[in-house]
């Protein structure tokens, strides 16, 4: 009879327990490491996604700013709040300080929600002296909850870079003041400054077709405010610049072999016959054609109400004053008739605004003459036809003669025809109009900028874009000029 030994059985049990213990330790260690790495990866992903939330806040604010440049009612800042009490010092200009709190689902991290807080203000030091343009400061905060325990990663360098809010949030209402948290989260802050963009930011911009296909046209630029880029504020061929950019929201620019000292941009389109485009050819252009609404003035000069012969309209030394504003049913002059836009006898700065509710026709040898020192803005509802040398800008500054086409009803296209065979110094913004600049010959020069629904240059030999126009005129857009992630 074989009798089993109890010592042998005990040994097997001990070995089994020992091996299980070792395997458990190995498993626990692997689990610990994997958990830490998983947590690190999750925290990293959340930290990265949170920047998307913060930048989305900047985008939301820019959308509201862009809405604000449309004619009323534009719905800008609807749903945004102004904090109470008002910040001190009080904002200098609209839109003041505004907050937006938006919670959006996030598809990137199992539907974890993003929270966006945006603060927009208009500091006094961000008002441009010349144009009085207000730059806006946008401070956006993106926040996302952190899944898992409030535990730092196993690497202090990660902790130093990716600042997580495990128990305390570093900022309270935008101030560096800690607040206790119920649950861990990630918070990232971005500060951006946006500046207005002029409607005259390009030498030529069209919503649709841009056609230069008639003669060998030259487009370049100068800066009337920079003596290195102009002479006495005038174009100087010896100092010409290379920012005569042309662009279309459409797909086609027919450059017609024109020499373009600047870029040619389409909206995912092509530049035909663009061998002489000296700058880059881009395909990523789109500029919303902001419509111009009819002026709404509380009071105007009562007379005249129409101009059908020689007349004089007197400008005022006070901008936006009653004395500077005229409303005309039409301007129609011909033969040798002259519409004089008169200013001060000494040529000092004066202002005049004219709203033409009908059409403008300057035919034959008639002229609209802008006197020295006068800055004129003309709004028109109907069509415009100006014969060669029909507009005389004594100041020779395109910023001093600005023409704005009021948006026609849907389905109707205005026409703007500017005669050439001479010199035109003006800026035209008519995104609802088919604009043609005609004329030509060796003396054909256009100084300024043109925006139209379509744009055709016929026989014009030279267009010189004044870069100073980009610092004034009506605001057509906002763009970011400064961006900084505040990672305090």
């Amino acid at each position, binding site marked *: 009879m074989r*009798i089993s*030994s*109890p*010592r042998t059985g005990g040994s097997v049990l001990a070995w089994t327990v020992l091996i299980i213990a070792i395997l458990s330790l*190995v498993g626990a260690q*692997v689990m610990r*490491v994997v958990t830490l*790495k998983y947590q*690190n990866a999750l925290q*990293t992903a959340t*930290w*990265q996604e949170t920047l998307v939330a913060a930048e989305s806040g900047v985008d939301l604010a820019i959308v509201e700013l862009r809405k604000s440049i449309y004619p009323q009612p534009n719905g800008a800042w609807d749903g945004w709040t102004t904090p109470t009490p008002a910040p001190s010092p009080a904002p200098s200009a609209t839109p003041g300080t505004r907050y937006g709190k938006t919670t959006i689902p996030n598809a990137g991290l199992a539907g974890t929600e993003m929270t966006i807080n945006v603060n927009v203000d208009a*500091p*006094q*030091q*961000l*008002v*441009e*002296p010349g144009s009085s343009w207000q*730059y806006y*400061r946008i401070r956006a905060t993106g926040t996302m909850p952190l899944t898992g325990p409030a535990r730092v990663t196993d*690497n202090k*360098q*990660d902790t*130093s*870079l*990716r600042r997580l809010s495990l128990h305390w949030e570093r900022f309270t209402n935008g101030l*560096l003041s800690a607040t206790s948290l119920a649950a861990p989260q990630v918070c990232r802050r971005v*500060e*951006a*400054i946006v*500046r207005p963009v002029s409607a005259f930011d390009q030498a030529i911009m069209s919503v649709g077709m841009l056609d230069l296909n008639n003669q060998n046209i030259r487009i370049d630029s100068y800066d009337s405010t920079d003596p290195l880029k102009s002479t006495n504020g005038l174009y100087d061929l010896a100092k010409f610049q290379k920012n005569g950019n042309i662009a279309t929201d459409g797909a086609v620019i027919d450059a017609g072999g024109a020499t373009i000292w600047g870029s040619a941009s389409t909206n995912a389109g092509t530049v035909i016959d663009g061998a002489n485009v000296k700058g880059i050819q881009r395909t990523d252009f789109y500029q919303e054609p902001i419509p111009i609404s009819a002026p709404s003035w509380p009071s105007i000069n009562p007379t005249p109400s129409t101009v059908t012969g020689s007349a004089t309209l007197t400008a005022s030394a006070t901008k936006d004053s009653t004395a500077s504003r005229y409303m005309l049913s039409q301007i129609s002059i011909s033969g040798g008739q002259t519409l004089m836009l008169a200013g001060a006898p000494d040529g000092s700065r004066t202002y005049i605004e004219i709203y033409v509710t009908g059409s403008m026709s300057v035919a034959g040898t008639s002229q609209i003459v802008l006197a020295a020192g006068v800055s004129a803005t003309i709004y028109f509802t109907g069509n415009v036809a100006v014969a060669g040398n029909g507009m005389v800008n004594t100041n020779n500054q395109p910023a001093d003669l600005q023409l704005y086409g009021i948006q026609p009803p849907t389905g109707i296209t205005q026409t703007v025809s500017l005669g050439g065979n001479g010199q035109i110094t003006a800026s035209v913004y008519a995104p609802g109009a088919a604009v043609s600049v005609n004329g030509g010959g060796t003396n054909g020069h256009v100084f300024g900028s043109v925006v139209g629904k379509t744009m055709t240059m016929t026989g014009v030999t030279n267009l010189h874009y004044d870069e100073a126009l*980009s*610092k004034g005129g009506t605001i057509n857009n906002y763009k*970011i*000029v*400064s*961006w*900084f*992630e*505040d*990672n*305090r």
Partner: protein
Amino acid sequence: MVKLGQSTRQIASGEDGFTLAEFSVSIAIFSIVSAGLMMGFTSLERSYSATTAFTVNHADQMRISDSLAMDLRRAVAVQAAQNDTSIYIPTYYDPTDDKIPLLPALDGAGGTFYTATDMTGKTIQTGSGSPAPTLGNNGEYYVERTPAPTPPAQPAPPVYALYGPKTGGAWGNGTPLSVKVHYYLLAGCIYRQQGNKPPVVLADNVQGFIFNVTDVGKVVNTSITFQPKFNSSGASAAATAATTFYNTTLLRNTRTDTLSGVY
């Protein structure tokens, strides 16, 4: 009851022994099993170690990439080179207390900068090169944006500085408007040094790391590569190349180190 002829040793319960042959066989089996277990554990440990090292290296890659991207997004100038890159970011914080942000100001050329002085109503000009004594009037300011010289000229940092107020017809010295953030590999560590502050170790024990920054103008590409350690002979070129971590970052700010300004 004990039978005659049986030894006392055979009779005693629990005192059975092994023959030499049995003992030898059991020792051999134990040795083989132990050796197998040892080899298994060693292999497991090596694999665990290699995997851990790979994971750590990958985490280092992500950290370096995230740090570079964060600075590149807010950069106004970049000087790129392998394992040695300088990124210039705006002086957003007060130099004496980096918890305090500075005030924004307009540079007179469509851009902005941050400064400790409230520039409301001040006349500010912008140009390339230091301001000539004949430029501007007393009380005015000047922002210098001088690009770095293009190769093959000696590398020099771009200049982005504020001069003024002009006093007594002199501009004085410029105050930097950007801070240099220097990334470099030294003695197996990758450092990030911001301005004159002590360098901070971004990743240690990274002798085999190579980080490349390629400046394309509007965007900057980064790639970070390390050498995985899966066996004693080192990683193959293909295995090393397979570790490369790529990132492309859009520079949000207008650059001060290019004549075109990029945007």
